[in-house]
């Protein structure tokens, strides 16, 4: 494989892994628990910024970028810290926003939280270097491993895959346990769940924070690879891309979320990179967004449950061999 292809494919694979993680996190919140978290991208971003700051080292006076905090922590601490950051920010947002509210207002509140986060980070330059963002973030273990440029990239692909597997195992534990059913009960009928003794607020927060941790980890993994992160890359529309991925792929099942991640952010958006450049700069970007919007509309209309809908969990009932899926 030529060097250029190697670079490209390894990059796409890392992006795929990160997007799959992000979709799984959002799926836990939205697909399983019914939370319309339109602020998802900011938790991924929190993870990225914290991981970056903890890898860049302390902020010196003459440095070209300003930021709070700063340390030179070795791998994997920045990634873990990124996850914690995502979780903490989710906890704060959840305490504010997770309450009984009509669903479109709830989505609106989350959307506005996302806008506030963007506004704050962009205007407070001392926080994370404002609109320019952070850059030149050292990649983890790059000196320790002493690999070639391409070799390091493939190492990182493997690393991303391992983290994906860990997150997958963790999510499986939660969703296959009775806790997973309780989350879906909250999603399906909140009052009914409460009438069964379930602490709806607690369950929502649990799902929301865990989703936030996963978001933070995904951001940390990505930033350590691409070495830069700025507000322009995490506007509120990015959350919409992830929602479209879930709509296309299918909610409340991890395979569907992964498929959605593959199809929307990766195959579609990356794929259009291969189109010959036409028109003025920015045209292709604009058309991409139009296409994402159309994709969402088309799928919500024709295939609202996605390509891989939530599958029916069939349970064998002792003593009832004829327990079926019943049509007469």
């Amino acid at each position, binding site marked *: 494989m030529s060097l250029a292809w190697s670079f490209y494919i390894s990059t796409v694979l890392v992006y795929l892994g990160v997007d799959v993680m992000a979709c799984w996190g959002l799926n836990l919140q939205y697909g399983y628990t019914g939370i*319309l978290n339109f602020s998802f991208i900011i938790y991924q971003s929190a993870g990225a910024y914290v991981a970056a700051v903890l890898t860049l080292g302390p902020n010196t006076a003459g440095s070209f970028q300003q930021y709070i905090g700063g340390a030179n922590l070795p791998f994997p601490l920045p990634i873990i810290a990124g996850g914690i950051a995502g979780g903490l920010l989710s906890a704060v947002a959840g305490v504010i926003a997770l309450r009984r509210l009509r669903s479109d*207002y709830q989505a609106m509140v989350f959307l506005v939280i996302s806008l506030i986060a963007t506004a704050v980070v962009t205007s407070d330059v001392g926080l994370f270097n404002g609109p320019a963002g952070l850059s030149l973030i050292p990649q983890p273990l790059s000196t320790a491993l002493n690999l070639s440029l391409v070799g390091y990239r493939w190492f990182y692909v493997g690393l991303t895959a391992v983290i994906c597997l860990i997150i997958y195992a963790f999510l499986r534990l939660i969703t296959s346990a009775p806790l997973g059913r309780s989350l879906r009960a909250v999603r399906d009928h909140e009052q009914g769940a409460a009438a069964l003794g379930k602490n709806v607020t607690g369950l929502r927060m649990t799902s929301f924070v865990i989703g936030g941790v996963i978001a933070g980890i995904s951001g940390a993994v990505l930033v350590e690879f691409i070495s830069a992160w700025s507000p322009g890359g995490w506007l509120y529309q990015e959350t919409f891309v992830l929602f479209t991925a879930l709509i296309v792929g299918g909610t409340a099942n991890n395979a569907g979320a992964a498929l959605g991640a593959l199809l929307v952010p990766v195959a579609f958006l990356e794929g259009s990179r291969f189109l010959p450049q036409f028109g003025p700069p920015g045209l292709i970007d604009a058309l991409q967004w139009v296409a994402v919007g159309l994709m969402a509309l088309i799928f919500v209309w024709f295939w609202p449950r996605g390509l891989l809908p939530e599958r029916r969990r069939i349970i064998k009932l002792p003593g009832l061999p004829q327990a079926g899926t019943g049509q007469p």
Partner: protein
Amino acid sequence: MFVHAIGFGIVTAAVMALAAVGFTVQFGVTNILNLAYGDVMTASAFVAYVSHSAGLNPWWGMVLGGLFGAVFSVLLNRFLYTPFIRRGARLFTMIIVTIAVSLILQNCLQAIWGPDFVSANMSAGASVHMLGMIFTTSQLILIAIAAVALAGLHGLLRYTRLGKAMRATASDPELARNCGVPTRRVIDGAWLLSGLLCGLAGVALVTELGSFDFTTGSAFLVPVIAAAVLGGVGQPYGAMLGALVIGLATELAGTYFDPTYKDVVAFGVLIVVLLIRPQGIFAEVASQKEVAA
């Protein structure tokens, strides 16, 4: 400085009032949270821009922008929103739909006119001093247009059958439905009126700002929604009051604090209102009404 800020605030409030009243009229009648509203404003502004480039008087541009907004909104509802609702789409599905429309519209505008700012090409006119505040002629005309439009709306709501039907639907949709309202006409009327105000507001906004790009309208959307919700959903007079409050508050905040935090004030108000204000917002007091199509 305070008085100047108030002056700015009044102009902003006038434009915001146009937009907020339009938003609240449509939201009150149909219960659809139309997040593409801001982008229709932008599109209307571009229509005015095109007409101005073609040589028409800028104030004609406003009329055309208003007409575009009205027609586009009715068509948007008829051919996109209503079919989804007829299919049983629920509130959160509609959010996805309206955001999708917003993104599509916004980016079509970008595709056509590019990402750069475009000048609104309005000469500001002579300065006028009033009560210690400084206004330009065009600002005064904007305020006057807003006042006239809102007065016209007031008349329509109060004295025409359509207006009364709309008010009935906004205040008690169940009852209205049982009495045979909202008919398609009332809903179309709501979107038409709302779209007209939206278009006027869009042109007024860019006139006031001087230059704009494809994101200008959607950036204005959150303060507009904040004003509408603050004043009570479906209450046009409330929306006007809400616009005044938010217009003044954001300008004062921008003057005394960091100007970039102007927006955050509106964001914060919207969140606080949505989370705390009980009338028609909290799930307990008002049952979750479904959308009307």
